[in-house]
């Protein structure tokens, strides 16, 4: 047994049986961080002291018989979720020195479970990107091939889990930012239904699309973390007051009676042959497990999702990022008496290229004369995309697609070509537009590089996609492979 490779449920069993202490587990992860961090650069902040003091407390809780499945288990948090007293940078110069005075709801919930926070993960600046190359600090490297990207924007979170720097991580997903890096790093990543998990304390990117979710080593862990973070929160007016089930109860290996659809629009332009081969094999496996599969489902508005997303998300971002004015917190240009010059230079030097590009795109789409042609039009097509999913879900329990049309690409390959970069999210962003839950899980390898499979559920249908994911996982061993690094 290698300690840093344990899953949550394995570590929990050992902690409960007192065969392992939280301090030992935490030290194993901290040692792993020392070992791999110089090669992969997944973390922006390492919280050694906090982690060890939380681990000691967790061991006391466990000795007292008070143990939650996450008690004493090390976690890494994407650096766009507020952690009280710990820098929260969004991998941006703008927030490089920002120390939040409060915890995000998800962080508070994990702390209440006795979690051990071991660090904050690198990301594309303000979660805008698909490769973690848009971090203002440094790019993160894919542990399966360090010359390639880990995906993004939650690249640091995915790499931390794949390498065992922590047992699990939290990420955020606006257009694929949990699922695409999960697919690129061969871990499990879930974007819950919009409204399922509180966004309070998540630094806003696109408020109608953002959602927090887990990145884990397997599906059981995913259900455990979702149990801990889901639920209504009166501090987020878009969190829904629905009851949350115990997600670990839906994990069964029998798929009899389930109807699964394969939307053909997700299997076209730009898809690599090895990805398509792996996906077709995975879907056949689901048929063997008892699912009825329709290979010819059509969602004809899918090709418009990219434009809809890249109008709506930057528009919301341009409004959300207007708050960075250098007055209340964050970077502030000082060398002038003019308020306008201070504002413009604060934002010029505080934001990186991709953030500026999206602010410009969003401001343009919302500006006088263009609003109807871009923003309103995109919102209308958004309605059509959602309706199309609703119709599909009247027949199917889940839909299945690749997570990304390609295996991880090379660092530098797309960073200067925004449209090519945007296209790497083409399979994941329709799901945020419609507000649906979706999970990415390991489904094979092409030339040694991970391939992810995406399962999409109906609104608040996380249980069904977890069930399908679990059945597939138990019938395969992709999730047991670890990168040699």
């Amino acid at each position, binding site marked *: 047994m290698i300690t840093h490779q344990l899953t949550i449920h394995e570590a929990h069993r050992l902690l409960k049986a007192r065969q392992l202490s939280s301090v030992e587990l935490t030290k194993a992860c901290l040692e792993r961080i020392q070992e791999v961090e110089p090669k992969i650069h997944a973390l922006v902040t390492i919280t050694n002291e906090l982690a060890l003091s939380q681990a000691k407390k967790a061991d006391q809780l466990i000795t007292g018989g008070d143990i939650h499945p996450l008690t004493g288990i090390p976690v890494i948090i994407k650096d766009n979720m507020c952690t009280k007293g710990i820098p929260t940078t969004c991998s941006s110069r703008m927030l490089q020195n920002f120390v939040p*005075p409060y915890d995000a709801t998800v962080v508070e919930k994990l702390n209440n479970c006795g979690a051990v926070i071991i660090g904050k993960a690198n990301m594309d600046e303000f979660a805008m990107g698909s490769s973690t190359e848009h971090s203002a600090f440094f790019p993160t490297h894919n542990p399966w091939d360090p010359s390639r990207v880990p995906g993004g924007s939650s690249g640091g979170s995915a790499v931390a889990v794949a390498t065992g720097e922590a047992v699990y991580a939290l990420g955020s997903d606006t257009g694929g930012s949990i699922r695409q890096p999960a697919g690129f790093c061969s871990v499990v990543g879930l974007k819950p239904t919009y*409204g399922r998990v509180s966004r309070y304390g998540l630094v806003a990117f696109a408020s109608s699309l953002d959602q927090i979710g887990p990145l884990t080593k397997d599906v059981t862990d995913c259900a455990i973390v979702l149990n801990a973070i889901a639920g209504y929160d009166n501090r987020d007016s878009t969190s829904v007051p629905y009851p949350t089930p115990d997600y670990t109860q839906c994990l069964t290996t029998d798929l009899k009676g389930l109807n699964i659809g394969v939307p053909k629009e997700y299997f076209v332009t730009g898809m690599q042959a090895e990805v398509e081969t792996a996906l077709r094999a995975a879907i056949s496996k689901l048929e063997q497990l008892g699912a009825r599969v329709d290979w010819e489902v059509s969602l004809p508005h899918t*090709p418009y999702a990219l434009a809809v997303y890249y109008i709506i998300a930057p528009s919301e971002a341009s409004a959300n990022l207007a708050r960075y004015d250098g007055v209340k917190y964050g*970077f502030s240009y000082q060398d002038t008496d003019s308020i306008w010059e201070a504002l413009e230079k604060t934002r010029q030097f505080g934001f990186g290229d991709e953030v*500026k590009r999206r602010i*410009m795109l969003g*401001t343009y789409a919302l500006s006088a*004369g263009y609003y109807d042609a871009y923003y309103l039009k995109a919102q209308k*097509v958004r309605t059509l995309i959602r309706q199309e999913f609703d119709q599909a879900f009247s027949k199917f329990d889940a839909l299945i697609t690749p997570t990304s049309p390609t295996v991880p690409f090379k660092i530098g390959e797309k960073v200067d070509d925004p449209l090519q970069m945007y296209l790497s999210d083409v399979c994941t962003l329709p799901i945020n537009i419609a507000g649906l839950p979706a999970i990415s899980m390991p489904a094979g390898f092409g030339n040694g590089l991970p391939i992810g499979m995406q399962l999409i559920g109906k609104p608040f249908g996380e249980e069904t996609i977890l069930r399908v994911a679990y059945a597939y996982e138990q019938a395969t061993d992709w999730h047991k492979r670890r990168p040699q690094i």
Partner: protein
Amino acid sequence: MGEKRRLNDLRMALLPILRYGWYNGQIMKLNREEVLHIARLARLGLTDAEINRLREQLSDILENFEALQQVDTSNVPPTAQSIPLQNVTRGDEVADSLPQSQVLANAPRKDGEYFRVRAVLE
């Protein structure tokens, strides 16, 4: 100065009509003034190199998005968000808030118990 700005704003507001002929024409590449106009709306300082790069990149991206105009959306209502919640209000209850020292802790410039800002009127 103010007069010139207003005239410029009016010209910019009319540009979409010139550009599209009521949304039917081909999009042309953004010009330098348009990029500067958008940057000013966003209060975003840009270098000359950034302006040139953004002209190219934004034009490219917008050209790709023209495909949206082909979708028939007559009688389709817009969707602003995906969940069936409306008019969420909170109870009018007294609750704790952050102490002033913590609220001001991240302020780049402060003056006693205030955020310090530059003069708005020049």
